[in-house]
């Protein structure tokens, strides 16, 4: 049985509909990431699960019991906020003990619990300090500690890493993932960063415009995007969408004068249909032709070396295509060359609706 069920939930502010018929189910111990651009409604959904916002329609169930009519404190949920939301006037110890104190635990139990969690997060030496005297990463740990002491059934994270610098963000990402694997608690995590989503999640819900665009495992989302929004949102650099027309024999896609064979996993639409061919930058390569690849004549437009790779922007029949090639690949700016591209996973999308056309 699913542990957390979000069933046809919607949210309306005044006359503006913010979320429409959201349905998501996850099992105990899953790490669900809600990802999407700002304003897509992901934080609203999180706050509704937390009980900080009321829902306008639908149900939220936990272990089969409705929780959307309960007060936040009765939901057995803990939350880590984007600004960490530590209580400024209290020491770290008091901050972490606060939920226990409100729940009426004895002083000894409070101290013991706080000490346990502090050891787990390696913040024991900070217990006497005030939040103002902590660094961003330390505050982050304290905020997680305050959520952990209550031993909740569900953790909510609201963009917890967005206030950290790049290096710390990567470290904390690893740490949260490790913590999840160690504790096995269900986590609902909101972010706008698709890398965080891909690295940590067991399931991802990609949201845009108040709608879940796709819900699935990271591999499903990445390899079989349901539409052009998901395809371009997940992955960096973004997937290229190349305008193409289905050839009369339905076996090829015509990109100007270039005839690309129809990718294997797609359902070919009628001849003459306008489609978009999705090509991830890392599917491009240089060198000898291999099985399932296609040689594509392009003109090199711009080269951006990143260290291990180089991002090479090329023109294919006038359309810009971003490719990711190994460092040191033999390409020169403003010259024609041939790139081979693996088409085995390539999706095509209906040019009108943006929906993927899988076989």
């Amino acid at each position, binding site marked *: 049985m699913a542990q957390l069920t979000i069933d046809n939930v919607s949210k309306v502010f005044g006359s503006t509909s913010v979320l429409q018929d959201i349905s998501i189910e996850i099992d105990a111990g899953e790490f669900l990431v809600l990802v999407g651009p700002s304003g897509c409604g992901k934080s609203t959904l999180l706050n509704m699960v937390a*009980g900080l916002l009321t829902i306008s329609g639908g149900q939220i169930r936990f272990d089969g019991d409705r929780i959307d009519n309960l007060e936040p404190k009765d939901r057995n949920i803990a939350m880590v906020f984007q600004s960490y939301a530590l209580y*400024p006037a*209290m020491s770290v110890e008091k901050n972490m003990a*606060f*939920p226990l104190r*409100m729940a009426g635990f004895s002083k000894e139990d409070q101290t013991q619990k706080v000490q346990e969690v502090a050891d787990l997060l390696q913040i024991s030496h900070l217990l006497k300090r005030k939040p103002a005297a902590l660094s961003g990463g330390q505050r982050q740990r304290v905020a997680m500690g305050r959520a952990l002491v*209550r031993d909740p059934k569900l953790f909510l994270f609201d963009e917890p890493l967005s206030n950290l610098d790049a290096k710390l963000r990567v470290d904390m990402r690893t740490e949260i993932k490790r913590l999840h694997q160690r504790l096995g608690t269900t986590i609902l995590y909101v972010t706008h960063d698709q890398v965080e989503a891909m690295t940590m999640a067991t399931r991802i819900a990609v949201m845009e415009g108040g709608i879940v665009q796709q819900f699935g495992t990271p591999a499903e989302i990445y390899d079989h995007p349901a539409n052009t929004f998901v395809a371009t949102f997940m992955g960096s650099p973004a997937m290229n969408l190349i305008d193409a027309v289905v050839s009369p024999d339905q076996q090829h896609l015509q990109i100007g004068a270039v005839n690309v064979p129809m990718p294997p996993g797609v359902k070919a639409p009628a001849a003459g249909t306008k489609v978009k061919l999705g090509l991830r930058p890392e599917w491009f390569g240089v060198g000898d032709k291999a099985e399932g690849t296609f040689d594509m004549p392009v003109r090199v437009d711009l080269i951006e070396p990143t260290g291990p790779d180089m991002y090479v922007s090329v023109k294919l029949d006038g359309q810009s295509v971003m490719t990711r090639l190994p460092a040191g690949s033999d390409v020169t700016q403003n010259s024609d060359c041939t790139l081979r591209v693996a088409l085995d996973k390539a999706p095509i999308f209906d040019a009108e609706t943006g929906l993927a056309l899988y076989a």
Partner: protein
Amino acid sequence: MRLLRNYVPQLTLLPSLILVAITVYGFIALTMVLSLTRSKMLPRFDRWEGFSNYLKVWNHPRWEVALENFAIFGILYIGGTLLIGLVLAIFLDQRIRIEGSLRTIYLYPMALSFIVTGVAWQWIMSPDLGLERAFHIWGWESFRFDWIKQSDLAIYCVVIAGVWQASGFVMALFLAALRGVNQEILSAARMDGASGPSIYWHIIIPALRPAFLTAIVVQGHLAIKSYDLVVALTRGGPGFSTELPSTFMYEFTFSRNEMALGASSAVMMLVLVMVLIVPYLYSELRNER
């Protein structure tokens, strides 16, 4: 010419520096010197009394009353404005519809001078003119409110008028601080199981500490300085039962021709102010670093 140009900033500041040095610090020093002389109606610097004027002030029954009143007034005035200001601010912070106009109404007494407040409250609290008479006319014959005529209660009338005047200002201070409290902290407290009153008690009010400090210092120095309110409300009376250090100082310096005595009481008021202000400046400057 170039030399002149280099010193333009200093030269521009010089007149005001000289003025401040003479009119503020010069006269503070002069007052201190005066307090050591035997000046009566006019300053005299030919006879030195040492600290005997201070002893005279400390042993004076009116100074004793003034200090006692200052303690009552200071504690109740500061405490009262803080409490009322905080409660008003918390109510106004509930995102009510007519907040703007209410804020103005509460803040408005601050725009009045203490003299106007004093006169108005003198009328309100006078048994012959104000509340007591109004209730008598409306038929409540036994109603009594004549604190202003009773020497042991008159100082509380000063407190009432002062609190009325300054609570709105304290409210504005607290309201600004309340608006600065991070909303996520309130959400976190709700998730952690705190209910409305305990969120205020455990989270919000502790977070208002800087606002408390500001309010206490501002109200504290107003309490020490307050002179016009007493003069307009009770003229220090009945008798000298509402005497404050400031009225004591004025009375002795300008009405009783005891200038040296008045000067020593003024110096002691300065010490009182400094006891309040110096810790404030210290903590403010330390925080800036």
